[in-house]
């Protein structure tokens, strides 16, 4: 199958989906994470426990939710509770993975979804934290899903909406965030990245199909840790694309 046979959104969905292991708990936000979770349930993770902010735990994603509170987020779920129950469950340490987006990300994985420019006189007023700060504070491992360009990958975000590693090693713990939590992966249209275990700075792990290390570096507004071995992320398989197109998003609302 040719590498052109899928679009960037499909690539993001398939890459994120592979980061959702079976029998784990995952906090699912609007958009790509929903599609990825649905795909994961239909591919390798039938028992992925999806957790939606406003109360749904363990929904079966037969149909794709259009909003984080709507009935598909608790369709055939094991529990339909409320926002506090969900976020307190995360705060208590029960949720392994959290999937997030953002307008800007910095080398320590801090995310901005609040403002571009000055807070009190913003150039662009963005939606705000929503559940992102909660997810980034409490889930054990957070995964950011973003389009990749220099305006988004910046040395310093205009506003830290959601905590990554803040200013570096030890900073989360010093701020009072639960020890052992933090950013885990960044999935983009160009690459999959992790964080250097010592410096907590973003580190390239794999390039997306057809993308070179140089292209990733060029499109990143800060110095990325480049290890000796950079893997090549496998393109979406035919099976992934078929399920995504024919079952997950058959009305093509997102893809």
């Amino acid at each position, binding site marked *: 199958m040719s590498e052109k046979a899928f679009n960037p959104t499909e690539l993001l969905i398939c890459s994120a989906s592979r980061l959702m292991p079976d029998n784990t708990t995952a906090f699912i936000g609007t958009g790509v994470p929903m599609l990825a979770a649905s795909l994961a349930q239909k591919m390798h993770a039938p028992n992925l426990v999806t957790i939606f902010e406003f109360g749904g735990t363990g929904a079966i994603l037969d149909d794709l939710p259009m*909003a984080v509170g*709507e009935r598909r987020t608790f369709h055939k779920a094991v529990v339909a509770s409320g926002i*506090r129950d969900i*976020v307190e469950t995360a705060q208590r340490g029960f949720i392994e993975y959290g999937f997030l987006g953002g307008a800007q990300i910095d080398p320590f994985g801090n995310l901005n979804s609040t403002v571009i420019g000055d807070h009190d006189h913003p150039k662009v007023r*963005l939606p705000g*934290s929503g559940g992102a700060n909660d997810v980034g*504070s409490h889930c054990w491992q957070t995964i950011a899903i973003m389009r990749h360009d220099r305006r988004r990958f910046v040395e310093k975000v205009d506003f830290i909406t*959601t*905590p990554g590693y803040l200013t570096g090693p030890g900073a989360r713990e010093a701020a*009072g965030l639960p020890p052992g939590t933090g950013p885990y992966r960044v999935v983009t249209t160009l690459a999959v990245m992790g964080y250097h275990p010592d410096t907590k700075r973003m580190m390239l792990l794999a390039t997306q199909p057809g993308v070179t290390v140089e292209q990733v570096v060029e499109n990143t507004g800060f110095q990325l840790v480049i290890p000796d071995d950079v893997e090549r992320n496998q393109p979406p398989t035919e099976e992934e694309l078929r399920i995504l197109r024919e079952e997950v998003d058959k009305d093509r609302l997102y893809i």
Partner: protein
Amino acid sequence: MEVIQSGIGELIQPPDINAFREWNRKKQKAMVDKRMTEAEAVRRFIHDGDYIGTELYGTVRCPQSVVNEIVRQGVKDLRVAGQGVYELDILLAAGLVKALDITYIGLEVYGISNCLRREVESGRVDTCIEWSNAGIAWRFKAAAMGVPFIPVRSMLGTDTLKYSAAKVVECPFTGIPICLLPALVLDVGIIHVHRADMYGNAQVDGIQGFCAELARASKTLIVSTEEIVPNEEIRRNPDRTLIPYYLVDAVIEAPYGSHPGEMCYVYERDEEHIKEWVEASKDPETTQTYLDKYIYGVKDHQEYLALIGEERLQYLKQIVPER
């Protein structure tokens, strides 16, 4: 127990928990008929400058018929808590919002809110204090508990905290830093439910969002409901009641009250209508046209439903899947 950090944001609604107790003491404990129209409820209970909040989430179990009436009556300088999708977008579109304790206002899959951008970037919304989603729910919970603050581990280390009115203290039991969120008492809370009796005892199906918390954090509570049921029906299943009557000041019968949003198990959301709004909201002029047609141009919720049309509304019920 040292205060390590204080957010620089304004405490728009200070947590005067003793005054809240005095208010609650005076609320009527008798079960009386509280049924009224959206027009009467808004006229009697929502005033210029009030601090209000809506539940659940934008297009999901949203008290839209009441929000539309606020717009029709032009209640202005509102201070608003929380997160929203369509409903807060409409209030912003109508230029009625002055200050926000904000966590998220956007259009979810359809992207960022143009109305929010226009109102905040122009300075017409003059105050934006930042919180997380759970942060706002927890602030309601603190008020609902009757205490001035609640400890959490959200917001720590971020600008979200810096531009909030939260404080960080050292926990006197463990020594770890803990974020304290101030209780948030609403002048008026607005909630749409599946069923309520005429006294205000109310039940919802599916997820509960932050219904219980917002109801208990409101000095005045307006409940709109898909249907009004006999008190006996409530009493048969009291373990389903999330809102006790004594919290409630107005009960509004509003079938399809969440339209174009959904009401789980009853009707689906009207995706075409939402897309119409998303398109209209991109430009101030088309925004105004939309408001003229769907809100200013109709007298009340009944006329609104007639404008949407019986066929469309029936369709939204027919496509509800089996449980």
